[in-house]
């Protein structure tokens, strides 16, 4: 290498160093820490009714994780017990998170099972449509979130949700609902209800990845969603769902 080439190269090195050094600290952090990209994911949940044992661990864990008021009636996820009697009457009651259900008179019961429910994270969410201040919105990864600073607590969304998935938090006085534990997803963890489910009745996955557990779940089972006639396109998929469930 002669002196002329050396100086040429030196010029390149110095100018590129200047450009890199000129990047702000923020831009550096973004370049180095590209761990989570919202556009690369699209989340959904699968629930196998035949596996749910109605232990209520999901309800309890959800309350702990998301600081949901501990008193009954405020739930981000809940488990309903369906009892269909021989005279075809259907009764539904929500499990209290502190109390397992009691024993039924068996000869009157035709079918009985548990149905875990949560926000269906609809693709066409009615709650987003009705919010007068734009506080609730859909993220790129398909989760419906509520901006607690923007929400005025008018309860339109609670009325509009066909699945009854929202409630007014008595402490913050704003609407609250399941977020698929969004703060856990970005860290690569599972939603807490999926984490603690002892029977793996809940399956969580990314619909943009073929290898995700949800992909397998939807291939291996016949899938049903709640209230399909409303065209909300729920992203919570049920396997072995009974026709009486709505």
């Amino acid at each position, binding site marked *: 290498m002669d002196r002329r080439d050396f100086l040429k190269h030196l010029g390149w090195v110095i100018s590129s160093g200047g450009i890199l050094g000129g990047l702000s600290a923020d831009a550096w952090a973004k370049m180095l820490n590209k761990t989570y990209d*919202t556009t690369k994911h699209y989340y959904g949940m699968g629930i196998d009714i*035949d*596996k*749910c*044992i*109605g*232990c*209520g*661990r999901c309800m309890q*864990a959800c309350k*702990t*994780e*998301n600081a949901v008021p501990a008193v009954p009636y405020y739930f981000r996820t809940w488990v309903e*017990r*369906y*009892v269909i009697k021989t005279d075809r009457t259907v009764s539904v009651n929500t499990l209290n998170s502190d109390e*397992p*259900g*009691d*024993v*039924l008179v*068996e000869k009157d*019961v035709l079918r*009985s*099972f*548990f149905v875990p429910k949560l926000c269906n994270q609809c693709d066409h969410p009615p709650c987003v449509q009705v919010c007068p201040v*734009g506080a609730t*919105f859909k*993220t790129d990864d398909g989760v419906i*979130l509520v*901006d*607690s*600073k*923007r929400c005025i607590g008018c309860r339109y969304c609670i009325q509009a949700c066909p699945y009854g998935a929202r409630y007014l938090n008595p402490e913050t006085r704003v609407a609250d609902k399941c*977020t698929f534990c*969004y*703060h*856990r997803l*970005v*860290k690569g*963890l*599972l939603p*807490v209800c999926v*984490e*603690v*489910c*002892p*029977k*793996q009745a809940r399956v969580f996955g990314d619909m943009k990845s073929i290898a995700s557990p949800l992909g397998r779940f939807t291939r291996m089972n016949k899938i049903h969603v709640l209230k399909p006639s409303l065209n909300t396109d729920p992203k919570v998929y049920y396997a*072995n769902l009974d026709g009486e469930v709505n």
Partner: protein
Amino acid sequence: MKDFFKKLPEQAVRVAVVFLVFVAVVFVIRQFIIPPEMKEPALQQASSMEREVAKEIQYAGAQICEQCHEKEPQIKKIGYHRDLSCESCHGAAQKHVENPTEVKPTSPKKRDYCAYCHKYNSSRPTGFPQINPDTHNPRKPCITCHNPHNPKPPTTPRSCAACHAQIERAKAASYHALIACSVCHTAPEKHKTSPRTVIPTKPDKREFCGKCHDKGSPRKGAPTVDMAAHGEKYVCWQCHYPHTLGGI
């Protein structure tokens, strides 16, 4: 220009000053005091997502437990509780992960905790191990007999009766007491893990019952009928329930 200002009545100037001050105040409020995310929905959503992401996690996830605890996860991997996350029983443990010496996770030792899953409830799927806490060794903590990390029953279950106890009890009092379940039913191995989707067989031919109950069968002591004339097209168990006393 100077003349123009001089010509203006003083009141008009004052009004103009007030007006200009008002415009300036509104401009400052809009431009500097109102945060940008209140004006731009995309920014508002981004800041809302940031706040959502910044929330603290409580449950650390099962993978992290194995980094320090070696023994228990190894035992658990081979047992019936293999799919159970540590925190399903031990509770939220993120604080314990951050400060392992001072914060300890809970460890439920009372009977009522196991009962959340294992108390008999007719809505639970058949095949899931359930007991009646009032009759199953009352007041004795579950962990005296069962290791929660590898919860084998202390005695091997009589395979079918472990889940189908009601049928087993009825059959024990019936004429079929000495006939094993496997004589009439073939249960695929997978039936034990997914009891509702993989179902055992039932006798699907009349001739099966006819082996003992047909007129002129070699079996002594069993009531017999003329299979050719009795019951036509029906399979026997559509009318006769084979597990109950005497049958009907």
